[in-house]
């Protein structure tokens, strides 16, 4: 199967190169025959990368340790569920996985546009297959997962298969880790398609609002996956790393946040172009930036140039990626520059107090966030280059910069939608802002009275109340208006209101999810932790909780040994629960890892970790963290996901436009026949 995989990989590379050249030729010569051939090359590329992926999974599932990759990242005792992620556990496999996901996206783009956007398609194929060429080339030449293990001796080279493999990193043997990398990768990879659309629109000079309307969905889907990936990554960190947090401003975490922020900016500014024909150059820049940051993110994750908790790979793919990033930047900016004349704005900004300027501020702040995170992330590399000393900027830098930026964004989340397009008079502002501000002031007063005195925490909760009230008011006012005009009951009006403009109301739901996230973030200010050595019968107090060690048990499972501490917990003197934090030692990998015990409710999490045995006393080292409001982060993530799905449902204007297109196609077809 190693050879089958290798054949798939080589053939994928050939199909990618062929698709790139034929696509470009089809665009230049406007040849339908060449376009058809290029489209088929995309399907060939998809089939061949699928063959390679299936071959690698087959090698993993059948414990074929003659394969160097399987011997490195899998083992016999590894449960089947965790054999699937072996595909992306290592450098070689993850690059293959990246290439495969790209092939799925491009094949989907080709199939969904069989009869549409026929002028754009040739260059879309050429560009995306260009990206495919790069990834299959890197996979094939520097990170080939189909290398075999051989023994060289005096009598020649003989095939070698060790009796067992090294196994999968225990930290990755966790349920959300099965889904986290694919989601993140679906996010990164997917950004190649909007980039291809943008470049194709530039190259064909088709810069009306068609490309931007088509592209919005192609940004939204990877943006959604990226968001899911980030939240799942946070869950993984929270449950596995054992320090009681979900975000540490680690370079690889930042790498996933960067394209998400740029994509968020695009999803907002795209509305100004659709509604008002403005910011055309800016939107191009954002699409390019989002894709660039996606590749940069993959590069950071995979090259190991910056040390991180995700230090999975130190490798020689760095130069390849550097060259590729330079090509992307040079190519896209040149094409953009050559077409600047076609990207003139159709309207001007009428007033500072308008929806447009709200979006514009939001874009600037998101861009500032991108720059701040980027600066902090690559600072070690810059400092090394300039002063030959690697200086790492940690969470204090990011928190100092990003908390005010985050709060400003939160404010705009509420304020922006309350401004009217073009201009908003003071009277309108007064009318819309009064209720949310009063509500926020009441909440602000209550939480201050309840003891929230830290400025940022108080502001965060105050703004959360302001934004939540503004969203509720939007839904309420809209539903009331519909009730009057359409004689519907409140719930029918609410439903129809949402479905008529899924994009706007889906957006509000996403905003509400952001509010919940910030509620969760604010909870971090009240985090409490304590630590103690515990043997049977020992007690540990954490605020109003009392922990008692009931015993320590040890044992062995298929792939790990464990030591479990049984802790009974009482709250204010009343028995509450029994918790079982565990320390595991994975045998194949020779690595220990803590398995936390968690008791969650909407108010707070009780988070208990055992960090092994103290060598002097022989007692368990128990670490207790009381983490308020953490659940709201996960709930917020879910709400954002729901809102995004809602916004993906075509709204009435999109359906009308779809019909218009169909009519046009029929007219064109009839004209051809006639």
């Amino acid at each position: 199967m190693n050879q089958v995989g290798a054949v798939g990989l080589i053939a994928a590379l050939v199909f990618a190169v062929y698709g790139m050249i034929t696509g470009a030729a089809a665009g230049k010569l406007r040849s339908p025959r060449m376009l058809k051939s290029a489209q088929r090359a995309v399907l060939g590329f998809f089939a061949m990368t699928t063959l390679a992926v299936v071959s690698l999974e087959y090698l993993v599932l059948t414990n074929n340790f003659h394969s160097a990759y399987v011997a490195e990242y899998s083992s016999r005792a590894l449960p089947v569920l965790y054999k699937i992620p072996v595909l992306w556990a290592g450098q070689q496999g993850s690059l293959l996985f990246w290439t495969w996901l790209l092939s799925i996206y491009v094949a989907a783009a080709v199939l969904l546009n069989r009869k549409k956007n026929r002028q754009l398609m040739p260059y879309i194929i050429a560009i995306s297959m260009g990206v495919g060429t790069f990834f299959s080339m890197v996979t094939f030449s520097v990170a080939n997962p189909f290398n075999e293990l051989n023994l060289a001796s005096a009598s020649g080279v003989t095939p070698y298969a060790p009796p067992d493999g090294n196994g999968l990193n225990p930290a990755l043997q966790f349920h959300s880790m099965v889904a986290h990398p694919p989601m993140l990768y679906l996010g990164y990879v997917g950004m190649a398609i909007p980039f291809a659309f943008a470049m194709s629109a530039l190259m064909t000079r088709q810069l009306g609002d068609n490309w931007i309307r088509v592209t919005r969905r192609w940004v939204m889907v990877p943006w959604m996956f990226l968001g899911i990936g980030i939240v799942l990554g946070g869950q993984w960190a929270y449950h596995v790393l054992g320090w009681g947090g979900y975000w540490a401003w680690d370079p690889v975490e930042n790498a996933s946040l960067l394209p998400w922020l740029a994509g968020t900016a695009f999803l907002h500014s795209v509305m100004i172009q659709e509604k008002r024909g403005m910011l055309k150059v800016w939107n191009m820049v954002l699409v390019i930036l989002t894709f660039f940051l996606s590749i940069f993110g993959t590069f950071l994750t995979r090259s190991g140039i910056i040390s991180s908790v995700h230090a999975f790979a130190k490798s020689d793919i760095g130069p390849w990626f550097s060259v590729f990033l330079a090509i992307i930047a040079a190519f896209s900016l040149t094409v953009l520059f050559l077409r600047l004349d076609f990207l003139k704005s159709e309207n001007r900004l009428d007033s500072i107090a308008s929806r447009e300027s709200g979006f514009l501020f939001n874009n600037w702040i998101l861009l500032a966030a991108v720059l701040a995170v980027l600066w902090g992330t690559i600072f070690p590399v810059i400092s090394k280059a300039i002063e030959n000393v690697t200086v790492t900027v940690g969470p204090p830098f990011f928190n100092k910069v990003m908390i005010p930026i985050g709060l400003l964004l939160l404010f705009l989340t509420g304020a922006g939608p309350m401004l009217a397009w073009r201009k908003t008079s003071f009277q309108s502002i007064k009318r819309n802002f009064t209720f949310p501000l009063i509500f926020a002031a009441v909440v602000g007063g209550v939480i201050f009275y309840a003891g929230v005195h830290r400025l940022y925490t108080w502001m965060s909760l105050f703004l959360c109340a302001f934004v939540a009230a503004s969203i509720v008011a939007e839904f309420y006012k809209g539903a009331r208006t519909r009730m009057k005009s359409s004689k519907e009951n409140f719930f029918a009006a609410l439903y129809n209101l949402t479905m008529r403009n899924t994009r706007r109301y889906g957006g509000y739901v996403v905003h509400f999810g952001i509010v919940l996230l910030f509620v969760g973030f604010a909870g971090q200010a009240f985090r409490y932790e304590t630590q103690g050595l515990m043997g049977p019968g020992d007690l540990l107090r954490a605020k109003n909780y009392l922990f008692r060690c009931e015993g320590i048990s040890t044992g062995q499972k298929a792939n790990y040994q464990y030591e479990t501490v049984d802790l009974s917990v009482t709250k204010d003197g009343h028995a509450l629960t029994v918790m079982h934090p565990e320390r595991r030692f994975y045998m194949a990998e020779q690595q220990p890892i803590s398995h936390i015990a968690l008791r969650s409710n909407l108010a707070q999490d009780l988070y208990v970790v055992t960090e092994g045995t103290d060598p002097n006393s022989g007692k368990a080292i128990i670490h207790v963290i009381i983490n308020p409001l953490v659940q709201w982060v996960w709930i917020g993530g879910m709400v954002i996901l729901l809102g995004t799905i809602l916004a993906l449902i075509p709204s009435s204007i999109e359906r009308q436009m779809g019909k218009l297109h169909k009519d046009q196609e029929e007219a064109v077809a009839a004209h051809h026949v006639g």
Partner: protein
Amino acid sequence: MELGIAILLVIGLAVFTITPLLAPEGSAEDALPIDVTPLTDLKRRRMVVYENLKDLEFEYEAGKVAKDDYQSLRENHLAEAAQLMLASQEQEEITENDLLIEKQVAERRAQRKSKRPDPFVCPECEFENPLSVKYCGNCGKELPQRSRKK
């Protein structure tokens, strides 16, 4: 065995990919159809303005927009819509004229063809003989057998 199947699959896909290039010229339409015609683009833009107008009215009814703002914004939108409507009417006329011209050209071509059936044309001097004759009325050369029939 598996390797053989994989290689066969690759060959099959390669043939599948290259086949469209081998098809004879003109078997498909001879150029890629346009994605959005100027007329559709104008219609779409008008649709957006109508949608903006509807939104504005809804927001006014919901009490989000003050009366003065509503009136001036509404006028702006209506002016924009009128401008776009004018542009689409012009474009529609252009499209109609284009179609008319194309139709006339096609008719004339057809007429010329019917006027000038091949059998009467001299292969030597390309003179159109009005009747089926044995010798060309212009150059006197003998017309081929097939040309004289009909």
